[in-house]
């Protein structure tokens, strides 16, 4: 393939940047959608219904899946390449350079955790919702009870009543937070849209976005965990 | 057999000489240039610019440097700037004024015609560099900025922060890269020229050592250009790079090229003083600092004692107790007198007991007045990187306390003798930049070294070399399998084998430090007949010691820095003696050459024009033989030789 998006380092990075950007936008949408669940199960389920096995939701899902695959495949490709470029003989002593964030040097590890969390999340929700509809069903069994494919609120309620899920999800969100603190400003840099004036601003935006995302997602998890486990007092 | 020196200076008015000469010399057609090979030794401003320009013209060029990349040549370390007679500041500068300042700065020991040509092409250099993308300092209007340098009363120095040499070299290196990419130039980094091959009286190539593998290689060419810089490291401690050496030039001398004015050494006034015996290198603080810095020592000896004892800080000394000795002695030029004058004045004060550090060998360079006048921000903008560098080395902030400075060996005006075409006494062998002797006389003005290197490389040699090569268009490729090459290669191999076999007790550096000490004490800032005679005897003895007692470890057929250093030191041990001999012969003071017996009542250099208005050209006669002197008389047709005056 003779395209700079595939055969040049800067081009490959652009693919990471754009796919990353699209994923961040999706995550922001997903987070806003989740927040609805805190306030109203009906409202949340209405959104779930919109995102059932209809054509636009399916196209969206396929698109997202493609983005994740591309983002991850390119990450692997680049990392292998980078590992080779580093050479066989590694430094015996390595010291952290001042001003270099931990996240920036561990994006692949963070990415793998995020991906792992995503798979878990898909098994918890998508497999019980859109997938059921794709397969022609309307409900599935979750923790001994049947839940409708459109009743996202019930799924949330059930999933986050389990403490281990809460822990896993929070770890997942934390990894995502780290990943995004670097990823969000980095995608501007890679696209060439950054300079010394904008670095502090972009890094601030990155912190803000990742923190909002973390808090937004975590809020739902925590609220539902609290609701489920101390129903008497709330 | 003395040299028959013909400087080939064109006839006619000073301003017409170069144009007339260019019109008169022959050129080589493009088709023939392709058939001609040129070797360039060194990739600094001279060599880099020459190799690039020659490649661009269509010659086949091979360029050699000892560093790992052409970009690292020591031209890169020049800080302050480059002169040109642009008159952008409207301060009445002109080609003539630049010419005159340079001749006068050189204390009337340079060739008028060469210096005028240098001033003439200086403007082209700035144009060329700007077009290459050299980011010179600019004013808010978008046009080029200038600053002042020693020995001039106009602002004609173009600069790129404190990294002018670097930027100009990156320009030349970029031009070189363009030609390497085009295939006209082939680059040989980490290669050192160990001999020049002369056959039938003409330069035919070189013997080089691959510094990585240790292999000895033969390279043939129709002309060889030496652009290997100066030999200041003969003093061991100097501002030169550790690898800078005089060996390439010295091989030419040994093979019959005349070596001119070897004793003319520039001692730069603003270097960081020596701190101890473990030092390997002296650090220069740019001359541009003298634009705003004021040089002084205390007036009272009690203050000096208190300073040395650490009882007071320099800033504690009151204004009226400070002796701004340059401003006192040279009111017209003040702190911006030429380098030789500033260096000697510092030595005079230190000899009188006013040196301000423990060794008594330092004076102050103070920015207090400038900071009060301009504010710390402006000073930071102008000299921030230099101040940081100073603080890094000495642990003292020049914003708070004055810098301590002392003179150090910096540049060698002497070098291989060349005619107006930059050709040495060996046909086909050229020398450009600091490696030759031609343009700076007995003292070089600040910001003129960059000018000369680039002038020779871009604008002089590419024309003049054609005159010689036009006679070679029928000549076949140089055969490197001839007795001359065999002999040269054998000599180099024998020398290496000899050095490796001595296995004595002293390291190369041990002996080099001894040589440096002899040179600095006896052939340094002030020389006497006695000190020079002492130097000659001591160097001869040290040379014997070297060949009996040096220890060179390692394998010659591999990367071997000790061997490289030993080969260079072997040459320094002869070159040092040559410098002393030349200094002894020149029984006068001029520029950087100060013979204590020859000074005016005020302690200024006293020239003897009737006897010494010549370039002393030496011919090699063998390691322990006295070299033979030939004089190239210097005619001053267009300037009036006078005692240099920087007072009014």
């Amino acid at each position, binding site marked *: 393939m003779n395209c700079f998006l595939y055969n*040049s*380092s800067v081009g490959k*990075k652009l693919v990471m940047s754009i796919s990353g950007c699209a994923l961040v936008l999706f995550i922001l949408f997903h987070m806003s959608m989740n927040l609805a669940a805190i306030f109203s199960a009906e409202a949340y389920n209405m959104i779930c219904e919109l995102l059932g096995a209809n054509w636009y939701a399916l196209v969206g899902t396929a698109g997202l899946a493609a983005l994740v695959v591309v983002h991850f495949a390119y990450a692997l490709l680049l990392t292998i*390449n*980078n590992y080779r*470029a*580093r050479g066989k003989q*590694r*430094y*015996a002593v390595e010291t952290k*350079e*001042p001003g270099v964030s931990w996240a920036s040097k561990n994006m692949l590890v963070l990415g793998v955790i995020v991906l792992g969390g995503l798979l878990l999340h898909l098994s918890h929700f998508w497999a019980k919702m859109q997938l059921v509809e794709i397969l022609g069903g309307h409900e599935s069994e979750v923790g001994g009870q049947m839940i409708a494919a459109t009743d996202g609120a019930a799924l949330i309620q059930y999933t986050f009543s389990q403490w281990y899920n809460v822990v896993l999800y929070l770890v997942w969100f934390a990894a995502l937070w780290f990943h995004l603190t670097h990823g969000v400003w980095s995608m501007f*840099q890679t696209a*060439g849209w950054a*300079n010394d004036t904008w*670095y502090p601003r972009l890094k601030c935006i990155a912190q803000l976005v990742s923190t909002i995302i973390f808090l937004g997602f975590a809020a739902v998890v925590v609220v539902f965990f609290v609701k489920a486990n101390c129903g008497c007092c709330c | 057999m003395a040299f028959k020196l013909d400087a080939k200076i064109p006839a006619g008015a000073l301003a017409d000489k170069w144009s007339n000469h260019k019109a008169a010399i022959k050129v080589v057609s493009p088709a023939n240039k392709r058939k001609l090979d040129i070797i360039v030794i060194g990739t600094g401003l001279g060599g880099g*610019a020459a190799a690039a320009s020659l490649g661009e013209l269509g010659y086949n060029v091979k360029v050699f440097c000892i*560093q*790992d*990349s*052409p*970009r*690292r040549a020591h031209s890169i370390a020049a800080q302050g700037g480059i002169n040109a007679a642009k008159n952008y500041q409207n301060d009445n500068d002109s080609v003539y004024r630049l010419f005159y300042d340079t001749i006068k700065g050189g204390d009337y020991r340079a060739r008028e015609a060469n210096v005028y040509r240098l001033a003439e092409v200086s403007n082209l250099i700035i*144009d*060329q560099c*700007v*077009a*290459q*993308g050299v*980011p*010179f*300092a*600019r*004013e*808010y209007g978008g*046009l080029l900025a200038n600053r002042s340098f020693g020995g001039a009363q106009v602002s004609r120095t173009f600069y790129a922060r404190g*990294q002018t040499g*670097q*930027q100009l070299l*990156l320009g030349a290196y*970029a*031009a070189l*890269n363009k030609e390497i*990419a085009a295939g006209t130039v082939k680059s040989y980094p980490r290669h050192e020229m160990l001999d020049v091959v002369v056959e039938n009286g003409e330069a035919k190539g070189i013997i080089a050592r691959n510094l*990585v593998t240790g292999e000895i290689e033969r390279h043939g060419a129709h002309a060889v250009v030496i652009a290997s810089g100066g030999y200041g490291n003969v003093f061991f401690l100097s501002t030169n*790079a*550790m*690898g800078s050496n005089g060996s390439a030039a010295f091989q030419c001398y040994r093979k019959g090229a005349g070596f001119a004015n070897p004793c003319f050494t520039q001692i730069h006034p603003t270097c960081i003083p020596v701190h101890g015996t*473990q030092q*390997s*290198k002296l*650090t220069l603080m740019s001359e541009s600092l003298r634009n705003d810095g004021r040089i002084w020592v205390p007036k009272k000896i009690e203050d000096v004692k208190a300073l040395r004892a650490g009882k007071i800080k320099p800033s504690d000394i009151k204004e009226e107790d400070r002796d701004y000795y340059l401003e006192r002695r040279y009111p017209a030029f003040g702190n911006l007198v030429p380098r030789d004058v500033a260096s000697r004045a510092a030595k005079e004060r230190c000899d009188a007991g006013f040196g301000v550090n423990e060794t008594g060998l330092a004076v102050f360079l103070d920015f207090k007045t400038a900071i009060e006048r301009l504010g710390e921000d402006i000073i930071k903008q102008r000299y921030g990187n230099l101040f940081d*560098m100073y603080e*890094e*080395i000495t642990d003292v902030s020049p914003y708070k306390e004055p810098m301590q400075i002392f003179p150090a060996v910096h540049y060698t005006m002497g070098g291989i003798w060349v005619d107006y075409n930059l050709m040495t006494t060996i046909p086909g062998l050229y020398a450009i930049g600091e490696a030759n002797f031609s343009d700076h006389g007995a003292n070089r003005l600040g910001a003129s070294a960059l000018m000369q290197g680039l002038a020779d490389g871009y604008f002089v040699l590419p024309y003049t070399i054609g005159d010689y090569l036009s006679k070679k268009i029928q000549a076949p490729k140089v055969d490197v399998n001839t007795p001359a090459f065999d002999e040269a290669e054998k000599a180099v191999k024998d020398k290496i084998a000899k050095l490796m076999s001595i296995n004595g007790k002293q*390291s190369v*550096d041990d002996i080099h430090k001894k040589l440096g000490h002899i040179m600095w004490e006896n052939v340094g800032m002030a020389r006497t007949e006695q000190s020079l005679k002492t130097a000659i005897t001591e160097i001869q003895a040290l040379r014997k010691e070297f060949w009996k007692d040096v220890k060179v*470890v390692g394998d010659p057929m591999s*990367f071997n820095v*000790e061997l490289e250093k030993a080969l260079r030191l072997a040459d320094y041990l002869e070159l040092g003696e040559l410098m002393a001999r030349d200094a002894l012969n020149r029984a006068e003071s001029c520029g950087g050459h100060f013979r204590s017996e020859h000074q005016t009542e005020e302690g200024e250099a006293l020239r003897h024009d009737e006897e010494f208005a010549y370039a002393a050209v030496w011919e090699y006669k063998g390691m322990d033989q006295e070299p033979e002197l030939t004089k190239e008389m210097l005619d001053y047709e267009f300037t009036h030789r006078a005692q240099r005056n920087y007072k009014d």
Partner: protein
Amino acid sequence: MNFTLKIWRQKDAKSKGAFETYKVTDISADTSFLEMLDILNNNLVHEGKDPVAFDHDCREGICGMCSLHINGLAHGPGQAATTCQIYMRKFKDGDTITIEPWRSAAFPVIKDLVVNRGAYDQILQAGGYVSVRTNSVPDANAIPIPKADADESMDAAACIGCGACAATCKNGSAMLFVAARVSSLAKLPQGRVEGARRAKAMVAKMDELGFGNCTNTGACQAECPKGISIAHIARLNREFLAAKLQD
């Protein structure tokens, strides 16, 4: 001051290397790091041992020759300085100091601490120049250049090509080096003319020579002895992408 030195020794490119330990004693705090190595080497020569090979030349922080990885950092402790500008007062008496060569696949070791950085020359040969002939140029003041642009160009042009960026980068990426040249010329009207061609050619050469990809960690700018900003990498990205999108 006294130090224990753990130094990487490697006979040549083909041999396997290993660390060796040396002691140096009685070192003044005002001694530079390389002078300290000179002292060690002089001792080794007296002992008849092969001295440690290391690159160095100007010892003023400008030639870009020195290249040591000291205690895990390119050019050792302290920012905005080359190895030759490090003084022993930066260390504590009795310290153990580990000295390694640049490690990057594109910079093979030649001997001990000396590496081959020819790849950087090759990248510049691919396009790091303005294609002007000697003498066929306009007057230096013919094209005014805004001071800010000239200053920014100079910021980038301060690169000394030492290789610390690629040596430090966990990806072995030469982006800061390439960006410095591309950006410096891109800010000047003289360099703009062939800006697109230059960006494409230099990035292609960089990739071909086996350097890694930039992941914006910023380690290069932290270790760059000339403090060159990764803003120049952003500009390189912009130049390259704009050029490719116009193809």
